């Protein structure tokens, strides 16, 4: 038990052992696979047409936004070059499917169907369409375990998108809540502020949406304000997640090796 925390080889062996667990998760996932198949196969024509219309409209909209984004990105790169910053914004992603969740409600962990053979690594950020979900904590041969940002043992550096204020968002074991630690009572933070990852922990890439502030309680008797936020990602509803391959990490690694 303690070994699991103390020794790295033990953790690695544990991750390798997860290949034993793969058939269990495969079997346990069958009912939801069947319902998913039913949902996608048994559909009326009207719904399909409606969906098609909605999706093509959405695509046009997104394409328009991407056009703007491309020029913005180019501009950003130029500005960063001017600043001599080495941060690269371009991240590649890999789609994975959630095949299981931790049976223990105290542990906010999910199991995804990608592993070592797909190049996953421990500490890799995981996002969904709406925001940051968590990070990979165990890579097995065929499946990996992801710790969600709402787990009680998880904290990540964030900043307020509006004014760049930095803080740390901690999970409290509830799927709809994160808490910002040590925010001074006079800080400029408001309900509705978007929190994005600040990249300071060297683990998550910069700029992914993390949460929206839902409550700011300033108690005159306390030196810090209580700031609650709700995660942007659909932590308990997503079926597919994206694994981010951050190029920055390679750079950091190379730097560490050469230095």
């Amino acid at each position, binding site marked *: *038990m*303690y*070994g*699991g*925390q103390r020794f790295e080889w*033990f953790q690695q062996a*544990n991750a390798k*052992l*997860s290949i*034993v*667990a793969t058939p*269990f*998760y495969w*079997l*346990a996932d069958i*009912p*939801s696979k069947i319902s998913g198949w039913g949902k996608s196969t048994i559909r009326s024509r009207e719904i399909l047409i409606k969906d098609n219309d909605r999706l093509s409209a959405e695509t046009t909209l997104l394409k328009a936004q991407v056009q703007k984004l491309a020029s913005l990105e180019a501009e950003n790169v130029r500005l960063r070059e001017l600043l001599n910053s080495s941060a690269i914004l371009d991240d590649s992603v890999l789609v994975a499917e959630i095949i*299981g*969740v*931790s*049976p*223990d*409600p*105290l*542990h906010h*962990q999910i*199991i995804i169907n990608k592993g070592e053979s797909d190049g996953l690594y421990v500490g890799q950020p995981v996002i969904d369409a709406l925001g940051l979900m968590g990070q990979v904590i*165990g890579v097995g041969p065929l499946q990996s*375990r992801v710790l969600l940002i709402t787990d*009680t*043992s998880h904290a990540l550096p964030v900043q307020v998108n509006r004014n760049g204020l930095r803080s740390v968002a901690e999970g409290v*074991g509830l*799927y709809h809540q994160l808490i910002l630690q040590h925010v001074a009572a006079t800080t400029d933070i408001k309900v509705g502020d978007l929190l994005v990852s600040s990249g300071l922990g060297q683990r998550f890439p910069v700029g992914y949406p993390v949460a929206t502030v839902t409550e700011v309680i300033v108690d005159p008797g306390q030196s810090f304000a209580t700031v609650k936020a709700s995660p942007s990602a659909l932590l*308990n509803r997503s079926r597919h997640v994206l694994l981010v391959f951050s190029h920055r990490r390679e750079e950091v690694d190379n730097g560490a090796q050469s230095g």
Partner: protein
Amino acid sequence: MVLNQGNGHWVIATTLLAAILLSIVPMPLWAQWGRPAIVAMVLIYWVIALPEHVGIGVAWMVGLLQDIVAGTPLGQNALALAVLAYLALILYQRLRMFTPLQQAIVVFVLIGLNQLLCHWVQTLTGTISPNLLFLLPALISALLWPVLSAFLRLLRRNYYVN
């Protein structure tokens, strides 16, 4: 006789593996805390029914497998189930005489202990439950015990497990 013996082992192994499978089936959010400790229940049944075949060793191995599958610290369920099997081995002669209701009460205590041990190990590794909800599975398991034991008895009789 030899055939029956082999048959019996397969039935025991299959029920235990099925229990592990059931222990990771996703539950809706509202029911998350009440997931019955199905592996512990199946194990208690086999210890009471066949104490000469299923004992602490089997419990330990099943617990290790459950740890690997559920991703809990390696040894958590192994420890809890081994203790559970030990207690059931001490109690099995009495438990066989009990009515289903009396058995359910003992199962409530045993599984409560199982949950406490699991939670104790988790506390060592840094996950602390904010409340006593982690004891809820003991109640649910006790309520399910008459059904599960009747089902397993049926299996045992049908496949001549002895």
